[in-house]
């Protein structure tokens, strides 16, 4: 079974690249909050829940939205689409916010709307809710981007467990350091190899994933 990346979004160092096109860059934006808000506005994504999300979810959600805008998965059954994501810091960025709310016993204010985001797989939940995706999902943690782990894991889901499309990649954020690479993986024999915007798909291999994260 030949698997291909039919759409991808790479967000890193004030830049957004979608399917080989630089769609956003602003060197004057210094922090993540301003950056992600600017991207959200430019892309005209109207989803009020976005403002309630923590930083990690905003990053992954927006990357997934841009991938799916180019190549929707609405033609598949909701349970045939999966999401497999990974990162290095888990939810540590939001863990620190929750911890700050409880470290002073005289000023104790833990909040459920923060605490729920102290799990890295919540970003998967946000993507699934927006896009009605109900298939296989998993969040894995590795020190650095591990293309082999993702290719083996996701490849197995296609081969044995009936998956037909999968959002797969990396969503890492800690403070103002962030990087996300989300790819849409599909079967070569049931999808078109070229997107409406002219992006020719890539093979879903360790080498190609590594090149996307290193060279954009």
């Amino acid at each position, binding site marked *: 079974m030949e698997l291909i990346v039919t759409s991808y979004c790479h967000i890193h160092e004030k830049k957004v690249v979608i399917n080989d096109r630089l769609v956003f860059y602003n060197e004057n934006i210094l922090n993540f909050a301003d950056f992600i808000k600017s991207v959200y506005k430019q892309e005209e994504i109207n989803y009020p829940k976005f403002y309630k999300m923590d930083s990690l979810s905003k990053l992954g959600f927006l990357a997934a939205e841009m991938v799916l805008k180019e190549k929707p998965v609405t033609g598949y059954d909701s349970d045939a689409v999966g999401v497999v994501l990974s990162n290095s810091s888990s939810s540590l960025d939001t863990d620190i916010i*929750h911890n700050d709310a*409880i470290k002073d016993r005289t000023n104790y204010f*833990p909040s459920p709307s923060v605490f729920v985001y102290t799990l890295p797989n*919540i970003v*998967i939940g946000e993507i699934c809710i927006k896009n009605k995706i109900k298939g*296989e*999902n998993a969040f894995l*943690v590795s020190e650095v981007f591990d293309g082999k782990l993702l290719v083996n894991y996701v490849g197995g889901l296609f081969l044995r*467990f009936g998956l037909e499309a999968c959002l797969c990649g990396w969503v890492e954020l800690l403070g103002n350091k962030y990087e996300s690479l989300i790819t849409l993986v599909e079967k070569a024999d049931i999808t078109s190899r070229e997107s409406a915007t002219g992006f020719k798909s890539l093979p879903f291999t360790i080498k190609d994933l590594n090149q996307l994260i290193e060279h954009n």
Partner: protein
Amino acid sequence: MKPVYIIADNIITSLGFTTAENVASMKNNVTGLKPVDIASLYPSPVILSRIDKEAMESRFLMVLQKYKKSSPLTFYTRLEKLFLISIADVLSKTEIIPADSRTLLVISTTKGNVDLLEERYKAVFNHRRLFLWELGRLVSEFFGFRNTPIIVSNACISGLVAITTAARFIHSGYFDHAVIAGGDIVSEFVISGFQSFQALSPLPCKPFDLNRNGLSLGEGCGAMALTSKPTGINSVPVRFAGGAITNDANHISGPSRTGEELSLAINRALTQAYLSPDEIGYISAHGTATPFNDEMESMAIGLSHLSPVPVNSFKGYWGHTLGAAGVIESVAAIHSLRTGDLFSTAGYEQPGVSVPLNVLKHHETRSIQSCLKTASGFGGCNAAVVYQKL
């Protein structure tokens, strides 16, 4: 597809440091859930299942001696000690060699060493220890595992995702053996968070009961050894027969309104196992005892035509152990599969979910061939795994 067998296991909770100690306590209807009033842990009293520190350290000293490690006790965090005791116990019961390139380590945890964010630990432990991959590396290097461990952090289904991931990688031929370990401790971080959700029961939790009023937290760690080459099995052979994960796509902190997505995971796991619902002899449910979780589970079990099947929740014995839950509850379920001894649902008194279930109120002895383990968690995730006796 290569078969996958479970050949050794361990459970650590407040009830004991081995599977045998835990099941013996449950047989005697001992529950680990107690009111805990420790100011450094939480500002007010709270029901918890906590592992005794002194008992843990004496077990851990034996592990340090066995593996000839010279680091002092204080070098390791509470959670690291639990992982090391648990995996050492499993390795002592198998011939699996960690240094073998065909052996995989999979770690499941939701929060890892998150307690190290507390001021009192900042000068004691390097901040790197907060990263889950650093926890994985420390555990892996202690035993000399050759392959980089896979680390799963997927809320309350983490343990089942870890087991399913390991089994799939063995099925696919990437590895021949795997050790899976899942663990989480009870920290102020987690207590305060669940309390802010008003999810904690003021009394020990009551899964599936009419008067259930929230969950009880517990700390736990567990491990399981899987292999495709079952040499040296000295107990009843049990195989991993199927496993599936789904998402509700409904809400990040509330379960599905219909249970359809957990039911889908159950149906897929059954299909992989080539089993029909009437061949499942027992269900180990998630059963957190929150009003919504147990209700959703009952609907899912009903949708999958499993409502007559005996079902229990272990949460009344050792609380909700988060990243350990899928592992230790699988181990306990497999024990029931092997021995026929099914455990009661501690805390359960009268039916309290809309789809009638066959909730185990007392311990029962039944001969069963296959069982189902389910879990659901924040982020809308659901998992189901089928174990089968050969």
